[in-house]
């Protein structure tokens, strides 16, 4: 890395004042909603959904007030600390839980509460006829609360609480229609894969506790300077494992496609806009550790690069509209991970892309939901086509999302993704060439598969099944889509604001993640920009030729080896099965054997020993007062005698 990089002054958080001191309301409001809906039972069936939606908007309102307060302060004074609960304040073992309100967490708060509230509104329409919608809204509120805990936590411990909370909400929502065994098993898959990641994170937290003597960000960040390199690398890699599980990064990505079993608003909120980006948040929040452990940071970048290509390839072959979008999510988070792994040059852009992606991907998921709504819940794009006429609003809003994710100027994705590609080309040796090329090629493939998705759904021949009558969705669903489409179009421009000296998002995040000086990619910036647009154009053209201009077969052709591989997620499940499950089963069997003979033997033996000892001792308890008195006397004599002897 260049020496031009300057570390931002470590911002110390002052006790919260003003609006920030009621930041706990952000979490409390949706949590209250979840509690009322879950505990209130059927009585809240009627008002429940509206109440949940209202509380989510209220939380957004609090977020706006906090944002305004922070905007009015100096950049260095924008971090507020809020102590919520302290176990023993003046003891030798103090355990405090608190919130950290700083630019990074507030950026997330805005994304979560705004997109979350829009999706609440959308769900009012989407889930209207579901008999169990009260439970659905309760879980949505629970999710929003847990996600806010995750990003507002002031320590890894509380972050972990939120981390598990969103995992729980995600599990409950994926399996929401659990009368379908496939959906229930998808929920379980997500659960198990996430356990692997969580294990990594929890070991990281324990290691931090041992190394730094605390797990709050302030203590950890302070302790990093004095810790040894290999410990830091280990912590970094363990954090990466946690991030991979939650953010569906290689090699823990297999659950995300199956998670699409949940209702579409859930896919939009949890499995596109917010929860799956928690891994990126974790890496950026731990930037002090990754800055001090370049090997771990490089691992993050490599994982991101692999995933972005992997997801893009898988996306090319999926015919299920939601699974294609899921593959795209995976790939886009790969971009964010790559950026986060690049160090100070990339942190701000990782978050920037995360924000714009939150809008355009949520918008496209809601669009997909709207399409499904009009097409009897079908998801096979080979039976769509030509929907642009029937669903004008959905087509237009989806189209804006499509342009955004492609990175077509001046839509949102252009500003955020282009910066990541540029950043990937910064550096020395092989790194910029490999990572940069991956990012560049990924952009081209993204253009291909997203255009394929868009054309197959909205253009070309109508390949509808006989029983469908596509129609536009009601206002309550289309309005949120329009708002998100607005974000897809303009949020990038707004946050990047090319006419300012530094992009507003960069200067906003600078106090947290540090500033970086002028960087020079190994290729000139205009060349990179041109190359990217060229790749994108080629991608669109190829998709146009194959999926708009020519007829799309209603049954998927056999396809090439690569296509077939991509359809089954590049054999990820098979690899998992061969590499982990089967040996795992063998290992489990042998462990069970050892456990049965050895450990259980030991534990059972120990229990038997205690039990036997206990039964024998019990006989001393004869029930006769005389023998009790004798025991006492013996005790006195023994103690006195022994003390005399010792004396």
């Amino acid at each position, binding site marked *: 890395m260049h020496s031009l990089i300057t570390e931002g002054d470590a911002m110390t958080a002052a006790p919260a004042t003003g609006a920030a001191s009621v930041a706990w309301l952000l979490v409390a409001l949706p949590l209250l909603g979840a509690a009322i809906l879950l505990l209130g039972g059927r009585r809240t069936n009627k008002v429940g959904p509206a109440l949940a939606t209202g509380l989510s908007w209220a939380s957004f309102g609090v977020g706006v007030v906090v944002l305004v307060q922070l905007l009015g302060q100096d950049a260095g004074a924008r971090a507020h600390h809020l102590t919520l609960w302290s176990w023993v304040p003046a003891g030798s073992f103090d355990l405090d839980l608190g919130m950290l309100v700083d630019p990074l967490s507030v950026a997330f708060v805005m994304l979560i509460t705004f997109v979350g509230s829009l999706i609440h509104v959308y769900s009012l329409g989407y889930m209207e006829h579901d008999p169990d919608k009260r439970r659905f809204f309760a879980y949505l509120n629970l999710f929003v609360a847990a996600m806010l805990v995750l990003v507002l936590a002031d320590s890894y411990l509380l972050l972990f609480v939120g981390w598990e909370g969103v995992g729980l909400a995600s599990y409950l929502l994926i399996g929401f229609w659990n009368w379908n065994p496939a959906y229930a098993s998808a929920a379980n898959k997500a659960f198990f894969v996430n356990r692997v990641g969580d294990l990594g994170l929890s070991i990281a937290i324990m290691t931090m506790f041992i190394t730094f003597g605390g797990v709050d960000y302030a203590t950890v960040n302070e302790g990093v300077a004095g810790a040894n390199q290999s410990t830091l690398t280990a912590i970094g890699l363990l954090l990466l494992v946690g991030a991979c599980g939650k953010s569906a990064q290689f090699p823990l990505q297999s659950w995300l496609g199956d998670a699409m079993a949940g209702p579409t608003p859930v896919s939009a909120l949890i499995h596109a806009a917010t929860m799956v980006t928690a891994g990126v948040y974790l890496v950026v929040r731990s930037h002090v550790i990754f800055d001090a452990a370049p090997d771990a940071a490089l691992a993050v970048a490599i994982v991101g690069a692999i995933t972005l290509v992997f997801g893009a390839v898988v996306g090319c072959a999926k015919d299920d509209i939601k699974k294609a979008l899921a593959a795209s999510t995976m790939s886009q988070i790969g971009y964010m991970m790559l950026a986060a792994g690049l160090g100070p040059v990339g942190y701000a852009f990782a978050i920037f892309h995360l924000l714009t992606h939150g809008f355009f991907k949520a918008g496209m998921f809601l669009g997909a939901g709207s399409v499904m709504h009009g097409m009897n819940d079908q998801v096979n794009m080979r039976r769509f086509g030509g929907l642009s006429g029937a669903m004008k609003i959905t087509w237009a809003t989806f189209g804006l999302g499509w342009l955004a994710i492609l990175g077509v100027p001046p839509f949102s994705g252009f500003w955020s993704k282009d910066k990541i590609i540029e950043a990937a080309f910064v550096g020395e040796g092989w790194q910029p060439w490999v990572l940069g090329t991956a990012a560049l090629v990924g952009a081209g493939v993204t253009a291909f598969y997203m255009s394929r998705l868009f054309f197959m759904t909205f253009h070309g021949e109508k390949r509808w099944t006989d029983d469908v009558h596509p129609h536009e969705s009601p206002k309550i669903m289309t309005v949120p889509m329009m708002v998100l489409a607005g974000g897809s179009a303009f949020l990038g421009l707004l946050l990047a604001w090319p006419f300012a000296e530094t992009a507003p998002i960069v200067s906003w995040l600078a106090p947290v993640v540090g500033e970086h000086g002028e960087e020079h990619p190994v290729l000139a910036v205009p060349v990179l920009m041109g190359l990217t647009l060229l790749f994108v154009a080629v991608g669109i053209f190829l998709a146009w030729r194959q999926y708009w201009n020519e007829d799309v077969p209603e049954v998927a052709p056999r396809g090439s080896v690569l296509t077939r591989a991509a359809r089954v997620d590049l054999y990820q499940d098979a690899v998992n099965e061969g590499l982990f499950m089967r040996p795992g089963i063998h290992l489990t069997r042998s462990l069970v054997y050892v456990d049965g003979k050895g450990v259980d033997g030991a534990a059972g033996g120990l229990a038997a020993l205690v039990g036997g*000892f*206990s039964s024998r001792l019990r006989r001393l308890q004869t029930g006769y007062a005389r023998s009790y008195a004798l025991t*006492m006397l013996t*005790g006195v004599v023994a*103690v006195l005698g022994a003390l005399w002897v*010792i004396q």
Partner: protein
Amino acid sequence: MPSVMPAEFKAVSIDYLAVLPMFLVVAGALVGVLVEAFAPRAKRHAIQVWLTTGVLVAALVVLAVWSRDHQSITLGGSVAVDGVSLFLQGTLLLLATIGVLVMAERFGGTGSDAFTPMGASTPGSHQEDAATRAGYATSEVFPLTLFAVLGMMVFVSANDLITLFVGLEVLSLPLYVMTGLARRRRLLSQEAALKYFLLGAFSSAFFLFGAALLFGYAGSSDLAAIATAIRTNSGDLEGLLLPGVVLVLVGLLFKVGAVPFHSWTPDAYQGAPTPVTGFMAACTKLAAFGAILRLTYVGVGANRWDWQIGVVVIAILTMVVGAVLSVTQTDVKRLLAYSSVAHAGFILVGVLAFSQSAIGGVMFYLLAYGATTIAAFAIVAMVRQDGSEASHLSQWAGLGRNHPVVAGVFAFLLLAFAGIPLTSGFTAKFAAFAPAVESGTSGVVMVVVGVLASAVTAFVYVRLIVLMYFTEPAEGVVALQPSVPSTIGITLGVAITVVAGVAPAVVLQLANNASQFLL
């Protein structure tokens, strides 16, 4: 021949506000006796419950408002009203209030459900039948409780051995009677009372003998005078000191149920009326540990290197035997009895740390454990089969299916006994063990044993929770609906268990601030 002039009579100065809580309790007890004799039978129960709780709460208020500012050694040097005794007396009054609320449970009958309508009648006799038929309801248990509380309050503040002995007897005698008052399984109850009385008398003898030896050594029964004698090495008869200390300690360790002086505990706990068991387990233990703290910290601490090792061994034995024996118990009350033995060991670990933070830790432990215990025994009293208490473990199977709230609360209390984080049990163990670890090798050894013993007892509790939730319900076992007073009592106990686990800072701070003896 020189005539011996009688010593000039000096009036003892009494700080009345300092000892007013004790006066209130004794007055309440005397009034209670009169109520028992003169009030109409139909109203007696209600009057006694109101009177007793009223007196206890009033004493607590007086203590918190006035006595706090009148810390002194008063009543001619025999009673020390200092931070420690005030904290312990306050805790005692609070726990006794909860205990009385639980004792008041009638389950719709005329008198307290747990107590016999006529204590003097022979079990199974016509007299007993007649008393039951006539709907007799005796409520002498309430004044008896007040007398016991008085004894305990004296016990924790006694500053000389004579007062200590008076306190011991005042608290013991009512408890012997209360143990024998059970309405059901009266023979078992009376047997327990007799055993408790015989062994209690035996231990009192040890105490008295030890006190005599210490008096012989120091020429005074005053704790401070004994301490001075030890420090200045001015005792005439050096050889009396060690046996004196040991024998006095034996008398006190008997009350807390330390091994090998614990044998009465399971029998008395099982036989006594269940609410009395809860009261006894919480308050007797608290009073006795209060006395042990004062004796060892104020009185005989100076030569502790001579006797400490003996108590260390007793503490280890207590934890191990209590934990191990709880494994094979099949009766809930006996199980909790052995658990209380183990807890006595844990508290002793704290006492033996000999530091100021240890005093705070021990006092916190006593409060936390007492509240949990009374609530737990109150719930044991609610679970019935065919009208009598279902105390056998097999009867608790599947309780969670039919009575989720009762089983849930009980499971929570068991987790507190086990010392799971976010319950008072964890905080208390932490507060008692941390000073022990800092105190040296023997402290570390005791803490290691303590943690292992906790693991064994945790197994016992978790097994009971599993039994309640994951097995088929036993036939005909029901949990009765508690009345308002005992609901308040149980709620208080559970609330203290929660608060002392989740936000212990305030109480811990209070205990630490109070951990000063007046010398």
